[in-house]
């Protein structure tokens, strides 16, 4: 059913991701692990056409942009890596435009999914998404999108600590956080409040659930009371010039040759 769940039907749970633009290092590990998990999971297969050729084409559910921000202060420009996947919006027209009922928003946790068995591949939902989160899979003939790893987060076959989205587990910088954004006391909600998390394109009216944490202002070091000069470390031990000391220095040199 592509009508959205009503306010009464919704559980109040809003599962989603919080993405930290300050710590993301742009390594694309989340995108790769997303592809790896989902090519065997709910959205399977996620085959690329001409994968090793000159013009590869295929659906990825998570993509990492890199932007340069020309800063207004006199600090140098900065690079911001920007992961972008489905935001599991609260009022998504990608769902209501779907003619078949293949696209739907779950009342119990707010996840937006596409049923690959009923999707006709008309692509209208991708036109309705402002965030470019839906990608047509040319090899499967249906629309693909982030599933919030619905087949991991509730998966009893996985260890409890592994019941998280693949991208969150893969991120080496801890830049992706998963949780219930409908619960003001959840860790993710607190993080959003503390770090001034924001919505992408709030003008869209789609009310994204996923939030982005802005890059922190640059630190010059001066305002911390510390000198701007680099600190020189104290040597751990100093030689005293004794015979044994010189012997060990000689042995060290010989052995490291």
């Amino acid at each position, binding site marked *: 059913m592509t009508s959205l769940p009503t306010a009464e039907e919704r559980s109040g749970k809003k599962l989603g991701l919080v993405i930290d633009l300050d710590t993301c290092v742009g390594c*694309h590990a989340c995108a790769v692990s997303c592809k790896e998990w989902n090519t065997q999971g709910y959205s399977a297969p996620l085959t690329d056409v001409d994968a090793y050729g000159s013009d590869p084409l295929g659906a990825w559910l998570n*993509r990492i942009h890199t932007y340069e921000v*020309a800063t207004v202060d006199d600090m140098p420009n900065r690079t911001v890596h920007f992961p972008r996947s489905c935001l599991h919006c609260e009022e998504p027209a990608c769902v209501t435009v779907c*003619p*078949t009922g293949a696209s739907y928003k779950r009342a119990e946790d707010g996840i937006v999914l596409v049923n690959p068995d009923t*999707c006709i591949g008309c692509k209208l939902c*991708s036109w*309705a998404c402002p965030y470019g989160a839906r990608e047509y899979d040319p090899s499967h003939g249906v629309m693909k999108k982030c599933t919030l790893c619905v087949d991991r987060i509730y998966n009893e076959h996985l260890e409890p600590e592994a019941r998280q989205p693949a991208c969150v587990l893969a991120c080496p910088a801890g830049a992706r956080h998963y949780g219930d954004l409908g619960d003001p006391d959840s860790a993710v909600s607190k993080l959003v409040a503390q770090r001034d998390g924001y919505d992408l394109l709030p*003008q869209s009216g789609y009310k994204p659930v996923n939030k982005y944490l802005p890059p922190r202002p640059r630190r010059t070091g001066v305002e911390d009371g510390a000198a701007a000069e680099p600190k020189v470390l104290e040597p751990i031990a100093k030689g005293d010039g004794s015979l044994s000391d010189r012997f060990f220095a000689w042995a060290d040199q010989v052995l490291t040759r």
Partner: protein
Amino acid sequence: MHPAYSVILFTTASGAGYGLLALLGLGAALDVEFPQTYWFPLVALGLALGLITVGLLSSTFHLGHPERAWRAFSQWRSSWLSREGVAAVATYIPAGLFGLMWLGDWDGTMTWQSLGVLSAIGAAVTVWCTGMIYGSLTTIRQWNHPLVTPVYMVLAVSTGASLFCPLMAAFGAVQPWHIVMAAGAMGGAILMKCVYWWSIDREPRVLTIEAATGLGRRGVVRQLEAPHTQENFVQREMGYSIGRKHAKKLRAVCLVGGFGLATSLQALALLAQGPLQTGLLAASIAPAAVGVIVERWLFFAQAQHVVTLFYGKHFA
């Protein structure tokens, strides 16, 4: 937006077909004197339903799973695309009965006239739904415009009328007011298109890459690296854009070489008689077709999707 030929063919062919169907249906209700031969309903209704059917079939070409197309009739509560499908199929019922009664010599009866009106209503609702598929998308500024759906309607009527008049003329039954109506509808389309283009060119482009990424508070943003080396689906489908100069030329082709020429030929036909009149009316079909196809192509090519901001465009 990428101008897919199957969608252009679908919307223009079925638009003209629904326009012609509506004119035949309304003509029946208004006691228009149709030619007294089986050939007329056979040719005219056959052409209308043929165009509609070719259009509907071509719209399934771009589906990933055409064999599942029947599922698209289920979500009429929320989806304009689903409503369009339902309306399109439902219109075949009164239109088919209308044609059968006409062939079976029951034309002129109340039932026949009511079926004509129902066919016209079905045609209007279907074209309205087609327009709303585009008009309701808030992600594309040039589509989410109050004139988009009315333009779809008036172009359906005017292209339908450009077929109706030469058909009537070929059977010797065309009246001057038929031609005036066709030329008037085409003139209305020209006017509305001019206002529409003027308006979308003027509208302030409020959305920026800074607003989309939320990084504006730190300064001016530009894309340094795309997420991948090759264009992906989103860029191929939604990143299509044409230069302003090129668009200007095509607008001129559409208005002058297309709709303008068609209206002029129709106006000339008003002054002519007999085979010359029929010839002029028939000749107006080609420029009308060129006009509506260029118009539809531009409708896609000039539409900029907001997602292009994430892929490096500065304004949307």
